[in-house]
């Protein structure tokens, strides 16, 4: 490593997480020093300055972080297989810098890394890694260049947990199991998908409400939720339980969503793709927006963070572990093919290709509901930009969404173009709020970093990883965020004006809470009797990730009693 500094001179630094030391977009431009892949404090006079880049008042932010994007693992791979035509249409050959790749809403792994980096994203998190698919997921993510990545292990429908809960397991046994899974699968958090519902589907259930007993195990989703949320809180895992609520996409599911928030009773939790869980049953079509009620509930609950799962119009594929809802939606598949599978009694996988049409009332209202959530949830620290890629649309539509949030007249123009009934049924047109650049920086960087417990990412204070993005201050925010002027990953310039200039490898981010290893005595016979892989082979060793020579492991510190997420 060289001891020379890189100087980014005279940028307008937009760093809300570093605001405590007085940086704000409106202050005069300041200099930023990078050294050995980290942000450095202002060096002494005699220090050697290597490269100097004049920013001329351009806007500087930390690298963006996508908290919820399906970019690796069995589900994504099956989605690619289901839509070969997409890969035939969108292909790119190797060009000396890039490897070849294909796909738009199910991009191949290399393309995923390139596109994220070109958009100024330096980390993305795969939210649905089934423990039995963990090795495949990490192998696939090892092929995603440039960006950091992490995974949430999916629990809550695995037969081991449900059986133990039904048998009256103590909270500490569940804690040990959750921690063991986090270690064994190299995850950074835990996600629960339709708690109990995926398992109940296998017993012929078609929906499961929060207090409805599982037809086989007799336990309720409420019990699964609170047990898992408590486990993560007890273990000090920074990222709280990542919750995909029950009854996704069903009109009237807003009551389950609000009950879920209430059930958590102050425990920290992250509700994901909230847009799909904010539907009412009013109006002629028995489908309406409940965004206002949900937003109010979130506003009142400082323990809750959310990401939106905004939809964008056009072709995509929905890929979810929630086989119950995917089975229900399979009739809407476009093109007409779909796939649904149970995976080792561990979770599920449902794939339904989907075309969101702006003239269709339901799709157009979904679009409006997502934007209402963004605009009605007051605290940008607790609401994050996602499309639930690829479920609501590809992650490449983020710049477009940022423009919708920052530019009210543009938003209203779009509203006027879609199904006209939506404007009458939605309060979107009456909302004046426009996101500021600081708020965008919070929702795409500082906020996700904080809720994930990433202490050295998402801000530009000295010591942070030198993930830096420089934007031209364009009036068209879509153009501005689509092609950042400069993107640095670990202090290295990887993209210029939205074009890749170099490639490399990011870290795999994991969490390692302490636990009692005696849990393996219970798990071992379970693996022997029910799984296809023995316990010893199931665990993923650090070497399996490091041996690729592609980036390292970055361990998120667990929280002590005095720390708090919020």
């Amino acid at each position, binding site marked *: 490593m060289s001891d020379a500094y890189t100087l980014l001179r005279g940028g307008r630094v937009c760093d809300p997480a570093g605001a405590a030391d007085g940086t704000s977009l409106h202050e005069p431009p300041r200099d930023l020093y990078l050294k050995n892949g980290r942000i450095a404090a202002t060096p002494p006079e005699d220090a050697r300055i290597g490269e100097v880049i004049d920013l001329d008042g351009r806007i500087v932010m930390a690298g963006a972080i996508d908290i919820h994007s399906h970019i690796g693992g069995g589900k994504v791979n099956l989605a690619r297989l289901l839509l070969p*035509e997409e890969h035939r249409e969108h292909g790119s050959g190797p060009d000396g810098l890039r490897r070849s790749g294909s796909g738009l809403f199910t991009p191949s792994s290399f393309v995923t890394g390139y596109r994220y980096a070109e958009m100024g994203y330096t980390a993305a998190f795969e939210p649905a890694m089934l423990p039995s698919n963990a090795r495949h997921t990490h192998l696939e993510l090892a092929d995603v260049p440039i960006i950091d990545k992490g995974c949430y292990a999916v629990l809550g429908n695995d037969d081991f947990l449900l059986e133990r809960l039904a048998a009256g397991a103590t909270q500490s046994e569940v804690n040990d199991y959750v921690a063991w899974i986090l270690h064994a699968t190299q995850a950074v958090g835990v996600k629960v998908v339709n708690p109990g519902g995926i398992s109940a589907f296998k017993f012929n259930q078609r929906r499961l409400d929060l207090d409805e007993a599982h037809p086989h195990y007799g336990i309720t989703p409420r019990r699964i939720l609170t047990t898992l949320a408590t486990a993560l809180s007890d273990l000090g895992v920074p990222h709280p339980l990542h919750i995909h609520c029950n009854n996704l996409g069903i009109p009237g599911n807003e009551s389950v969503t609000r009950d879920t928030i209430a059930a958590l009773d102050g425990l920290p939790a992250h509700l994901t793709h909230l847009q799909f869980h904010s539907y009412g049953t009013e109006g002629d079509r028995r489908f309406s927006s409940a965004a206002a009620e949900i937003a109010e509930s979130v506003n009142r609950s400082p323990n809750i963070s959310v990401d939106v799962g905004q939809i964008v119009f056009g072709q995509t594929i929905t890929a979810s572990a929630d086989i119950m809802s995917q089975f229900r939606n399979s009739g809407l598949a476009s093109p007409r093919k779909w796939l649904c599978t149970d995976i080792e009694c561990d979770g599920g996988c449902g794939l339904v290709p989907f075309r969101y049409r702006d003239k269709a009332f339901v799709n157009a209202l979904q679009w409006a509901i997502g934007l209402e959530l963004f605009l009605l949830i007051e605290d940008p620290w607790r609401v994050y930009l996602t499309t639930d890629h690829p479920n609501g649309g590809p992650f490449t539509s983020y710049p477009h969404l940022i423009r919708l949030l920052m530019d009210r007249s543009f938003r209203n123009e779009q509203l006027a173009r879609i199904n006209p009934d939506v404007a009458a049924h939605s309060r979107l047109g009456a909302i004046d709020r426009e996101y500021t650049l600081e708020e965008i920086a919070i929702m795409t960087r500082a906020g996700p970093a904080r809720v994930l417990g990433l202490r050295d990412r998402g801000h530009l204070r000295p010591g942070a990883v030198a993930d830096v993005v420089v934007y031209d201050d364009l009036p068209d925010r879509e153009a501005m965020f689509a092609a950042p002027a400069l993107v640095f990953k670990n202090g290295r310039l990887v993209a210029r004006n939205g074009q890749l200039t170099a490639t490399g490898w990011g870290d795999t981010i994991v969490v390692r809470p302490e636990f009692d290893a005696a849990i393996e005595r219970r798990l071992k016979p379970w693996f022997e009797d029910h799984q296809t892989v023995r316990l010893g082979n199931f665990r993923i060793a650090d070497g399996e990730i490091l041996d690729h020579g592609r980036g390292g492991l970055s361990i998120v510190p667990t929280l002590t009693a005095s720390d708090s997420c919020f």
Partner: protein
Amino acid sequence: MSVLSFRLKGPLTGRVDASPLLPHRLAELDMAEIAALPLRHGRGHVAVGDLFELSGRPGDVVELEGDGRLDFVGAGLTAGTIRVAGPVGHRVGTGMSGGTLVVDGAAGLAAGAAMRGGLLFIGGNAGDGLGGALPGERTGMTGGRILVHGRCGDRVGERMRRGLIAVGGDAGAYAALHMNAGSLVIGGTPGPATGHGMRNGTVLFRGEVDPLPGFADCGLNQLPFLSLLDNHLSELEGVPPTCRGLTGRARRWLGDRGFGGRGELLACL
């Protein structure tokens, strides 16, 4: 009529994607632009002018010197004519929707796959997947005509939905695999498992076959439509002679009943 000719400068050293060499596309360019056009070549690219010597004038006819490594010839052809002297590689005429594509020699895999219209003529033999579906697709050929003078490989007419395929020689295994509709005429004998998963459509052939158990033997029939089909085939240009001269008498099997099929296999006399 203006003809643009491409003569190979030497033998190809890797597979080449010739899909950009379509008459209507080249007609918009001048000769220098055509010579500079990049073609995928192995893992990299090569300019048209480095591979071919060009002569003639861009218009609605393209003449190519063939090579077994020249893939995607005429893929996506919509109008005009491409004539190839010699063999071609894989995927000739993939997804073509109009125009005429004439190959003197043999063709590789998946010739005329997902074809929607137009005429594909192959003077030699064709490989596997003739007139079939692209990988992962639910339908294969949906229109147009494919005429092959030699024999063809396995899975001819896979998931075919409309159109005509006439093969002069024998066909490989799984002819008309999962066929939905359309006509497949085989001048010689088809291989094993002909018509597996067939839901509709017609396969006509000469000689003996041993149909799958999913097919019901309907005995020897006098079918008037066969002479109408024969008239039609004799009016078309380039139909292999072995595919003509149907007498009207054929042994008929119906199936594949495992797939609710109403397709028919006709052993023509």
